[in-house]
């Protein structure tokens, strides 16, 4: 048995050193070796944690998801979720291309998104109605694929109170991070100090046996005796730093740093968008629309920023947890208004006997929604929610949306994971708009009740 084999057996008996030696094989730089060792140490720590968790876990199916993970999905901001993307919606036969433009101006006050929507062109309904089914199908087949395209420009206000942008060095997050991880720079530097000191001493004593390429020293830049010392000291430092890093990461997860994202998600949103829809003449008139929307919640990062700033470091995590709990129970308001101008439309096709003329039209839609979680289960998840909604439409070209106001108050009780029971009242300003109700009390009021098993309303 040669010396290498004996060394390997000894190393195996001692555990990790062999692994470190294996990881740093191939003459890496000291930094690269430390990276590998530290991350292996992190994985070992995580593996140990998982094993302990599994051993402590009762048998049975795993729960799917958590409050934190689902709220993280909510965090994904509508303007920043996708830098550039293309989404094909098979159901609605449309392709959406998004491009998020870099924020404008030094204060980064605006998030800007350009969007193009390409829809499967559909023959304009009045044209369809005036033709035989066969002829309508022929014309439909002749419409160019680019017969219904929209261009949308969206602007979202972004500052300390509006939007979901997290500035790179948000002071609130910086303090909270420090309070949660509780690993001070002194501790980490003390762990790395032996490696740095040994390396500095060797360099100062001109112990490098060759010029150091890229100013990124390798173990092999030093004599074998120095290499051995460097390996021992720097790998040990890296292993300890990796374990500390694992502890930092675990502390963040235990304290549900995702709750920070929830608070950010609850910030006010003010979004203005304008769009122009270009259609083939057989598809219908061109449209121009402007929409303004606003969202608000009483518990958000901006509404509690001063509380967090005023809290001392030792109480910061507790204060943050209290605020997060309140945020989960907070309601949310959304209001929006949209105005659409529809161009004058004219189509003459003597061969088909078509002579359609539609004047310009205007459409207004305003809506307000308030959602308030009411009942909570033992784990803090809401099981009952009250929704108050109101929508007013006034379309100059559609009697079904002329001076139409429908408002409803709905309470939804979650019965099981699959079934919920909504019950509520609906008001409509004209009796013909009072639909989707179980019982009518008057021309304007009705009871809405949807039984989970009946499927009817």
């Amino acid at each position, binding site marked *: 048995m040669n010396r290498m084999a004996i060394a390997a057996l000894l190393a195996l008996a001692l555990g990790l050193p062999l692994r470190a030696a294996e990881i740093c094989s191939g003459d890496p*730089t*000291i*930094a*690269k070796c*430390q*990276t590998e060792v*530290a*991350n292996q140490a*992190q994985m070992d720590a995580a593996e140990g944690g998982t094993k302990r968790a599994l051993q402590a876990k009762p048998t049975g199916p795993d729960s799917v998801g958590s409050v*934190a*993970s689902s709220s*993280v*999905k909510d*965090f*994904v*901001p509508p303007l*920043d979720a996708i*830098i550039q993307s293309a989404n094909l919606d098979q159901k609605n036969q449309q392709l959406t291309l998004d491009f998020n433009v870099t924020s404008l101006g030094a204060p980064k006050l605006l998030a800007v998104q350009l969007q193009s929507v390409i829809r499967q062109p559909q023959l304009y309904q009045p044209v369809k109605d005036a033709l035989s089914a066969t002829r309508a199908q022929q014309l439909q087949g002749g419409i160019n694929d680019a017969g219904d395209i929209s261009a949308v420009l969206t602007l979202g206000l972004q500052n300390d109170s509006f939007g*979901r*942008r*997290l500035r*790179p*060095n*948000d002071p609130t*997050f*910086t303090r909270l*991070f*420090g309070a949660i*991880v509780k690993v*001070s*720079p*002194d501790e*980490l*530097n*003390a762990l*790395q*100090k032996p490696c*740095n000191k040994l*390396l*500095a001493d060797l*360099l*100062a004593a001109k112990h490098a046996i060759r010029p150091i390429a*890229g*100013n*990124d*020293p390798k173990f092999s830049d030093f004599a074998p005796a120095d290499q051995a010392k460097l390996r021992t000291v720097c790998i040990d430092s*890296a292993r300890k*730093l*990796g374990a500390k*890093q694992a502890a*930092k*990461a675990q502390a*963040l*997860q235990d304290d549900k*740093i*995702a709750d*920070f*994202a929830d608070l*950010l998600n609850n910030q006010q949103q003010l979004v203005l968008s304008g769009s122009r829809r270009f259609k083939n003449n057989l598809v219908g008139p061109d449209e121009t629309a402007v929409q303004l929307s606003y969202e608000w919640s009483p518990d958000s990062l901006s509404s509690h920023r001063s509380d967090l700033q005023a809290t001392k470091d030792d109480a910061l995590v507790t204060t943050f947890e209290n605020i997060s709990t309140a945020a989960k129970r907070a309601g949310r308001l959304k209001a929006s208004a949209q105005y659409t101008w529809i161009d004058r439309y004219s189509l003459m096709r003597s061969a088909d006997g078509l002579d359609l003329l539609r004047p310009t039209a205007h459409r207004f839609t305003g809506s307000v929604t308030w959602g308030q979680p009411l009942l909570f289960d033992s784990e803090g998840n809401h099981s009952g929610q009250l929704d108050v909604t109101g929508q007013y439409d006034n379309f100059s070209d559609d009697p079904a949306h002329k001076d139409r106001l429908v408002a409803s108050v709905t309470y939804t009780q979650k019965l099981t994971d699959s079934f919920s029971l909504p019950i509520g009242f609906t008001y409509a300003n004209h009796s013909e708009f009072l639909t989707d109700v179980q019982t009518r009390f008057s021309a304007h009021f009705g009871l809405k009740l949807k039984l989970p098993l009946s499927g009817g309303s």
Partner: protein
Amino acid sequence: MLFFFRRSDIPDGSQLVLNVTGDTDKVAQVCTMSVDQNPSAPLDPTQPLSLQSPHAYAVELDITALAAATVTIDVSVTASGGVRVGVPFQQEITAAANDLNTIRCDLATEN
């Protein structure tokens, strides 16, 4: 993940530049520094850090993902004449929500 970046014999007045690009709005960045083992106030990682001789700097940038995110970290040291000191570092990270990634920079300036 923990990444190491080490440079020594850095000329006086050089600048350390930490640059994080990609889904930066889905990550929180916290940067701490110590000079000769003495901790200093948190740094703004978007601003270059001027390195003075003769000191040993330890800079740690913690990148916490608040949602699934992909970012690229670039680290470089540039001397006052604009000459790069050693090879720059680049690392792309794909992080799940709550993941913590750290780049640790150990920098020694010329004596």
